[in-house]
């Protein structure tokens, strides 16, 4: 489990992290979301000790993260970083060895990943001789070569073509399946919805929403969408007891109703049936992008 507690960091008058706290459960793909400038990159850099925190701490498996623990983490920074003129196999071996692999193990792991990513025949090519997509693949291999326990990726899907997105998604899912905790940031919320079990959304260096994707999409005030054939304007719903539910509007003949906390949805169904033939009755979930807009007040 990765625990971030009360992270604080100020750059001059700008507050990047303002007591940020959240927990990433083990063996999950975890989405880390927020508008630009919310503090995502600063948080990720803090996990790797690349940012000196003004306060707070990062814990991994219960212990404060130190140098040794970090060598078992894998990191893909937002702005991709590898040596442009160094052969890719050599870079992967070098990074593997910096992460405590022996020379032989590093060679083996580097070759395995290059094969897996379809780059086996390019092992001795310089990084800058590869296409953009292949450079991204090497970057991913660099984060994975030492078989990390925790994988932190800053915008791993940025700039990938659809094939690349699928490949990346598959590998991240596979790693999580193998017990690795995967944390990544992204603005592509459809992808996050599809890939992640849980997310954290931050804004201005603070946590604004956190939890399982399904819970967030349902929200703390469940909404119902109901269509009664005889009453498309939804006059029946206006008469509902506010202690049970409140009508919010009409969308294409469906009445949207916010259910009061703890209220029984069946009471609403009863009222609808009394008004006519119920053609549609469902819990309405928000898309993750709607959740994002609601909690940050910003567009994705």
């Amino acid at each position, binding site marked *: 489990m990765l625990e971030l507690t009360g992270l604080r960091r100020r750059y001059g008058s700008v507050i990047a992290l303002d007591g940020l706290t959240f927990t990433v459960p083990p063996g999950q793909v975890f989405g880390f979301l927020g508008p630009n400038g919310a503090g995502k990159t600063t948080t990720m850099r803090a996990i790797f000790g690349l940012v000196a925190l003004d306060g707070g701490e990062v814990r991994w498996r219960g212990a404060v993260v130190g140098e040794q623990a970090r060598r078992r*983490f894998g990191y893909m920074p937002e702005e991709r970083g590898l040596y442009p*003129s160094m052969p890719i196999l050599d870079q992967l071996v*070098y990074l593997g060895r910096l992460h405590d692999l022996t020379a032989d193990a590093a060679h083996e792991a580097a070759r395995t990943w290059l094969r897996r990513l379809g780059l086996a025949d390019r092992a001795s090519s310089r990084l800058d001789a590869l296409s953009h997509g292949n450079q991204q693949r090497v970057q991913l291999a660099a*984060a994975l070569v030492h078989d990390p326990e925790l994988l932190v990726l800053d915008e791993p899907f940025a700039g990938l073509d659809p094939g690349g997105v699928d490949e990346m998604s598959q590998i991240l899912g596979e790693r999580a399946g193998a017990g690795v905790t995967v944390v990544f940031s992204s603005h592509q919320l459809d992808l996050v919805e599809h890939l992640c079990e849980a997310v954290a959304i931050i804004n201005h260096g603070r946590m604004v929403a956190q939890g399982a994707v399904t819970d967030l999409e349902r929200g703390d005030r469940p909404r119902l969408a109901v269509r009664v054939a005889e009453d498309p304007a939804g006059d029946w719903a206006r008469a509902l007891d506010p202690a049970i539910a409140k009508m919010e509007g009409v969308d294409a003949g469906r009445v949207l109703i916010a259910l009061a906390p703890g209220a029984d949805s069946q009471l609403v169904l009863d009222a609808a049936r009394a008004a006519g033939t119920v053609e549609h009755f469902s819990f309405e979930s928000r898309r993750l992008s709607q959740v994002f807009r609601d909690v940050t007040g910003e567009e994705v």
Partner: protein
Amino acid sequence: MSRHWWQKTWLVAQRELRTRGRSRAYLVTTVILLLAVAAGVVIPAIVARGSKPERVGIVGGPAAAMTRIVTEAGRISGTKVTVVPEPGLATAESRLRSGDLSTVLVDGTEVVVKQVAFAGTGGSFPVALANLAGLTKVLGQLPQSTGPNGFALPVRGLIPPSASLTTRLTGLFTSVLLWIIIQVYGQQIAMGVAEEKQSRIVEVILATIRPIQLLVGKVLGMGLLAMLQTAATVAVFLGLGSAVGSSVVHGAAPGIVIAGAVFLIVGYAFYCTAYAAAGSLVSRQSEIGTAIVPVTLPLTLAYVLSYTVLYTNGANAFYRVLGFLPPTSPVAMPVLYAAGDVPAWQVAVSAVLLAAGTVWMTRIAATIYTRSILRTGARLRIRQVMREAAH
């Protein structure tokens, strides 16, 4: 610093050795350097073969016996000689001053030259002549107590001793080599640091090791490459030089070579971290040129002014001061020593000052490097970095 600390640091050094050592640039500069040295040694030797014989005056004694001694001394030292009998010492000395004669042998008393070579080096002919003439005298007059020069006659100079031209040329060679090596490798370090910062690989690396390890590994790897290249250059200089009997090499007194080696190593240590710090201030490699100017300046000053010392008798006070200041001493002090303007103990004092300066410089440079290597954006100013807390 644990074994593990050094293992990781050595990994960084190894990467530098592999990637730079295998690069075409390294091979090309090595070949050019070696060719330049070879040419510098061989060409003067070829020119010297066709040179005019030395005119040696003889005063007093039996002319035939003294001519034999002079001719034999010439044979031993590999110098062509012409013997010129002189009527008296006064005439001989005035002709020595005018340059008409190069050496004068006074029967059984002394060998006179215009200026005795610094520290007894260079001018192999007068030494051979003095030894031979002294031996001849002793053999004729045994038993007699031997003087401080063994069996050799004293060699007297008409003007105070200073370094010979060949010694000065060795000094020039040393200063050029030092200047080039420190500049070239310093620049490579700065470029390498900027490359890591620009490509952001530094974030991946510093997630595993500390900035100081990356810094030490880098300057260590580059330093080893620099030492290898220098050792090869000096080996060619000495090997080829002695093979062709070059007078340039003959002036390569061990003292100057040792002083050069010490100042190269400590001078590199002084400058390498400064170059790394300069490299860490920029965000793009293209900004390196202007960022390293302040680091380059002192050594270039010492190098440019070294010509004023090597080609005159007696260095000026300003250059003597440069010889003791750590930023300029790596070039200035070997030059002063080669020109015979400072005694060995002053060289040692300067080396100690440089070593102390290196400790100071490394501390400041490491602070700047550590604070700026992860900060991207506009080019950073040193004052700004030193004032602010860590990144």
